[in-house]
């Protein structure tokens, strides 16, 4: 179990056209959420390389979020369909490394879905808090 007052650190990859906008809309709507998450913007969720996700875990992420446009809405036709395929592969790899499934999430969030974004962050943060720090987190990392 996690020590008292421990806050998880979550890395969220967001695409420029949808989920980054969703995070913006959450802000505009003042939807409060835990300060656990750091957004990294890419143009399309299709840019998110499994390497980036592994790396985030190796650097110390307690959870990683892969997000993009709803299927059918990708600004580049179908980048997110490729994301979906890569995500399945990622899920399997991480399970073999002994990571709990709740540390990796895929979610499609449109630019208008601010509340959905905020709820997502709130839910994942709560789940990861239950789990405690990631087993892959190097010692001393905050």
């Amino acid at each position: 179990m996690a020590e008292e007052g421990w806050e998880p650190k979550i890395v969220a990859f967001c695409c420029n056209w949808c989920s980054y906008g969703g995070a913006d809309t959450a802000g505009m709507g003042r939807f409060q959420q835990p300060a656990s998450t750091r957004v990294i913007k890419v143009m399309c969720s299709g840019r998110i390389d499994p390497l980036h996700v592994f790396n985030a875990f190796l650097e110390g992420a307690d959870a990683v979020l892969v997000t993009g446009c709803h299927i059918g809405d990708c600004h580049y036709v179908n980048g997110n369909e490729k994301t979906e395929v890569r995500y399945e592969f990622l899920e399997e790899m991480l399970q073999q490394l002994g990571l709990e499934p709740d540390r990796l999430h895929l979610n499609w969030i449109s630019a208008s879905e601010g509340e959905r974004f905020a709820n997502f962050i709130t839910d994942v943060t709560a789940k990861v808090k239950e789990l405690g720090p990631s087993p892959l987190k190097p010692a001393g990392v905050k």
Partner: protein
Amino acid sequence: MTEQEAITNEESEEVRIGAFICECGVNIAGAVDCNAVADYISTLPNVVTSVVNKYTCSDAGQAEIKNAIKDLNLNRVLVASCTPKTHEPIFRACVEEAGLNQYLFEFVNIREHCSWIHMWEKEDATKKAKELVRMGVARAALLEPLQSSEVPVTDAALVIGAGVTGMQAAMDIADMGHKVYLVEQGPSIGGKMAQLDKTFPTNDCSICILGPKMVEVARNENIEIMSYSEIDEVDGYVGNFKVKVKHKPRYLNIDECTGCGLCTEKCPVEVPYVEFDEGIGTRKAIYTPFPQAVPLRALVDKSICIDCGACIKACERGAIDMDQQETFSELDVGVIVVSAGFDVYDPEPNHDFGFGLYDNVITTMEFERLINASGPTMGKVVRPSDVKPPKRIGFVQCVGSRDKNSNIYCSSFCCMASLKNAQLLKEKYPDTEVYIMYMDMRTPFRMYEEFYNRARDMGIRFIRGRPAEVTENEDHNIIARIEDTLTNEIVNLELDLMVLSVGAVSPESTETVRQILKVSRAADGFMMEAHPKLKPVDTTLDGIFIGGMTQGPKDIPYSISQGSACAARATRFLAQGKALTEGITAKVDEDICVACGVCVPMCPFQALSIEDDKLKILTALCKGCGTCMAACPTGALEQSHFKNEQLLAQVKNVFAYGEV
């Protein structure tokens, strides 16, 4: 020094970052201790200066950035403020003015992504802001200059949907001297306004003011109307859209048909006219849409045609061609305006207020057709059950609007529409008892509150409350049980006809267009603008604009204003004749690439191919999504501005050893 040399020079220099932390008044400073952020950032490698501004985007703030670039010889600039969606272009232009390549600018969002979502956790918010800026500093150090390319703009516009909004947009663009293709899915232009009887707040006849406008559109030499047509595919980007339009078969030669109607007279098949008369009147299998239609041409409804050949015999011009197939045109346009309008909310599935159960419960759109002098009853208001004139009529407001069970938004035109119809009834049949059952009457804008007062003066009765229960008696009269929340009384109102004031919803056909164009969808289902205040008719996509009901519920004056706004915004590109495209594309390192071809099928735009054992990138086709490089097993592919090392530097700097 050439530009290329200048760029190479910048590259070889030591990295000198200037960081500007914006307080945004109290928007950021209210939750984030900006001075603490600036202090922390000043300790990071490569940071030459780190300052706090009250408003970085103001003239003074921008001047400070430009001066610092010159005085401190900065070669990277980072601003930590609001969202790049609105402010990145401003700061990019600012650094360019001071001689720095715009791609050497880094934006960190500490408002939407920090101060506004952690409003009461000052400590957490400040710590997070420090880390977000630290990530940005790491990324900034690795940024490389890029050139955005200037592309020529095709001098033509596409307008999708020819309601009053699209007509206005098309006319304004055409009058500024540009070619417009006006694509309308229905057989006539005009949209919903063509169906209305009168229009508030002046109660002038709708088709009498719309009809001449429709003729004007048809006459305009710069406008090419493509009626009964739909958008099939759209490819390209601002300045250079390639559009495939599908022309549905009318089963007659539109150049031969004169709209005389001889065919219609002879056609033996008659069905309720749902598309225009809301099923109250009828039409034949071959019909012209309505007397003022533009183009005034017939069409055949093949789903009910019995192939008797009567129309073919009747047509004196041999216009009918029952073997006609759908055809396609390819258009090149520089800009696109979407004005695809709305549908009215359908109360049938949930039987709202007895709709669909009792004959004498109808919608306002049906009522518009009933009271319309050129409608199926010649303007005589009768009720469906016995075709008798109703003596007691009640309007129920907010049906399908402001309701958790259907749509939470206000449709905005329906209060005024019911006030209008109630007034028209009183004028036509002074003895009729007219009731409006409402939650709130909403009448902003010029002459609207006066319009409401006029309705009160005319003796229209307002009941604050909506029916909790609706039943029907043996005479097919409607009994509405309402709690009047002004008098605290339960009223059992017996009505001969009850009219549901239905709101607006975004139609499914619009959803198809939205997905083809990749315009965002707002929470209410309508298309989403780039910014709710600053860019009400822009989308996040350069060169694509939205107006009228497509962007959300609104009345005719507002729709027309947005049509003109779309025209003005769109014509900027056409008038300039050129547009800038992002410099973000795929790049291959030929020394690493083994020409395995794994990336080739990943590209949605066919920008990649293997030729002579080498990967070839057609940069003109690449839109810089980055999907290919995530598949490359060797790491030979890179996306400029989102290089692996840049993204990984951000990842690394999420985490810190020791205290921030």
